[in-house]
């Protein structure tokens, strides 16, 4: 849908799993959910998180695929593997830094979130983001998301690997990128990171 973007904010997630239930209702993979959901550590806390695919600008899953079965459309959507090509080797499952692709049995095919291609291509919002009661998954215009406490970013650092994505992650307002490595917060490293962004 023109002018709409996908935003993920785990801090809003209440663990209701409405997204999983709704994903199952999507036409192209009815009966199968492509959402990644976790209680972070249920013993310790109630925090939970639900994720869709981030739809990387340069998708690692496609880069590592030996059968050239994973395609990104012009609209930036990274699709499930092409069934005739997929050899079910699980390279993509292992390589994705976000842990998104799933090897489906008994189909023997990698399937993943395609941001409800059947819906977005005809002007409907993706199912998960439409139903999400806490709007931890949101498909809205940027001006709507600007009202939030957190700020969207689509730059991620996984160690040396910088990834930019179609889907945005909500981060604390003072952050420009999401990085998980302690070294990225060290004084001597920050200069390097800044240089990379330039």
């Amino acid at each position, binding site marked *: 849908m023109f002018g709409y973007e996908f935003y993920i904010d785990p*801090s809003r997630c209440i663990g209701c*799993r409405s997204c999983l239930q709704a994903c199952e209702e999507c036409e192209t993979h009815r009966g199968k959910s492509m959402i990644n959901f976790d209680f972070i550590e249920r013993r310790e*806390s109630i925090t939970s998180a639900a994720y869709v695919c981030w739809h990387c600008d340069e998708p690692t899953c496609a880069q590592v695929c030996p059968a050239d079965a994973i395609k990104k459309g012009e609209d930036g959507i990274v699709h499930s593997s092409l069934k005739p090509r997929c050899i079910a080797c699980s390279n993509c499952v292992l390589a994705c830094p976000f842990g998104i692709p799933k090897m489906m049995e008994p189909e023997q095919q990698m399937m993943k979130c395609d941001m409800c291609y059947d819906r977005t291509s005809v002007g409907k919002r993706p199912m998960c983001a439409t139903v999400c009661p806490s709007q931890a998954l949101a498909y809205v215009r940027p001006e709507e998301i600007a009202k939030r406490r957190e700020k969207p970013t689509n730059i991620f650092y996984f160690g040396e690997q910088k990834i930019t994505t179609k889907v945005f992650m909500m981060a604390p307002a003072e952050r420009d990128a999401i990085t998980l490595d302690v070294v990225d917060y060290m004084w001597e490293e920050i200069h390097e990171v800044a240089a990379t962004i330039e």
Partner: protein
Amino acid sequence: MAKAPIPEEALKQEFGPHLNYVPPGGWKDESIHPAEKLVKTHCCFCGQQCGIQLKVRENQIIGFEPWEDFPFNRGMLCPKGVKRYMQSGHPDRLLTPLMRSPNGFRPATWDESLDFTVSRIRAIQEKYGKDAVAVYGGASLSTEKSYLLGKFARVALGTRHIDYNGRLCMVSAGTAYKLAFGIDRSTIPWSEIPKAEVLFVIGANVGECAPITTDYIWRCRDNGGRLIVADPRMTPITRNADLYLPLRPGTDLALLLGMLHVILRDGLEDHEFISQYTAGFEEVATYAQQWDVRRSAEITGVPPEAIEKAARWVGKSKRAILLHARGLEHQSKGVENCSAVVNVALATGNIGREGSGPTMITGQGNGQGGREHGQKCDQLPGQRSLADPAAREYVADVWGIRPDELPQPGYSAQEIMNAIHSGEIKGLLSMCFNPLVSLPDANFTREALSKLEFFGVIDFFMSETAHHADAVLAGSLQEEEDGLGCSAEGRVIHWQKSIDPPGQARCDSDIIIDIAHRLGRGQYFPFKNPADILEELRIASRGGVADYYGITYERVDKEKGIFWPCPDLDHPGTPLLFADKKFYTHDGKAHFNKTEWRPSGDPIDDQYPLYLTTGRVVSQYLSGTQTRRIGALIDQYPEPRAELHPRLAEKYGITEGDWVTVTTRRDDLTLRALVVKTIRPDTVFIPYHWAGIRSANRLTHRTLDPRSKIPEFKVSACRIKLATSPDMSPDDRAAHNGASRGGP
């Protein structure tokens, strides 16, 4: 005679709950056979009443599409809403009337089952008097059905005793709001929530029981609002709380009194508002003087500094909303608890203006609309009092009877079951209520049911309670009959009929009207369809507090809901109450109500040193008659678990997943442990949606709030021990053996 005719297990095999995992025709079918139409209607689960569009094909619901134009939820749905369509076309659906037989239940014709029902009702009433037959209703019924059932009990049966399962929901709040404001409704539409500076949420597991409200709360925080959560458990919304108050179960009143104490001590009250618009402040203020934070902290277990902070945040705010739900209502002092919330709001002037107000979150599907027009034991349509001579005269006139023909107020839901147990009530007609799972002290309920001389059930699935029936009349689902509902906001909405009842099943209202005719009272029930009932309801409610005179299906559809009171066809409805600072009380003022502290009805002691509290999980609804039949929802949370803190678990040698036996003064229950740091170490939580050997309500007690008559589900005394296997309790074994032996 009303014991289960054959063993429970055999009944379960025949009538379920079975799990439905796929839509009619299977997952792939819709792409080949697309829906014929989309029907704009509402979810049947919970008082949020989210708008949803049901996909219909060949008189079956085959899926759903979000309804993004409906203003309350804007397309959002919880997992129950997403999968609600799976109840339609379910293999367990009752398709014919059933009559008890030596082999269980056998299909019967409508004539046979209704004539039998009428003859049994007549025989009992002739032998023991009119009041020997009682009626149970449900808060999942449309407002028209609720109205019809109230009139049916009073005009067709002439019994005093009709009440409904909303008695187990928000009646404490309703009673408190009627005392304070003269009206039983949320004071605000939900659109006010994001405008608040402070949200104080007490006893309300919003994330799981009112999931859509979460988005309103998060938007309030986006706007800079602060969130306070008071609950024995860190419920999902607590993850973003600015202040969390971990109070002991049953001590909400002590917390609220401590907060009021601080507000008055620090001079944070709104003098002008109190003097101009309220009554009864002095007495409440004097009592609050005894409640310094130290005393409040000792009873609640909340640190004094946290109580001070909460009080100051609310007290200094010009826009504070105080949200509350079953946590403080399900107590033997439920009315006092809700009055204490109201008192804090009134003392700080937080009412009738933007982004402020005390607000109950009604929990059941039509919990609001179902309690306004006559299935409550003490109410007539329009929230009129059955004891008020003027109200009796008005409604009797609308109904075409003499006021003295109208029965007086009768027993509440639990009191009806008590009277069945004691033999005072001999016959029961129950619609859309599963008391064996939802009333406290389930063993007592089972004993009571076995004493009934006649038990008729109107329902769409065979509930566990219906196992004890003599006749089970196949009724309708929400989507099978037109009608109004009213959401937690007070917004009247339209449940559009999507499909006809399948097989021989009939619309609920048809069944009630048919029984009335067979009882020889047909002249009072000339209704051909729900629209006829609504026409009479509009007039019957006219001039009452819950005035629906200006509400029609056409208006509701066009305006996407109308907030009552709506006294005329050109009246816009009333989203925000008290904007003019006028209240619905006799003197037009808001009333403070004194709230004296008293202990729970099931106090802890050396033998039962822990608190047991019960509640919901997000994937299940009430007694589970519907949601325990939907595979995807059961997979999400397959069976009840006993939630306990690692510190408590360690003390008893319990680890995650172990079997643990929870024992109260009523019974014991063995469940797997869920060991989490998100619950107080002196408290055990069990969700209540399951039946039989998994039924939390075998453990709860029958103490009622003396005014609202709500049972104290949220506080029982218990003890726990590590168990080796999920063995059945002695009572359940007895129940099973008893059933297999047959009736007396």
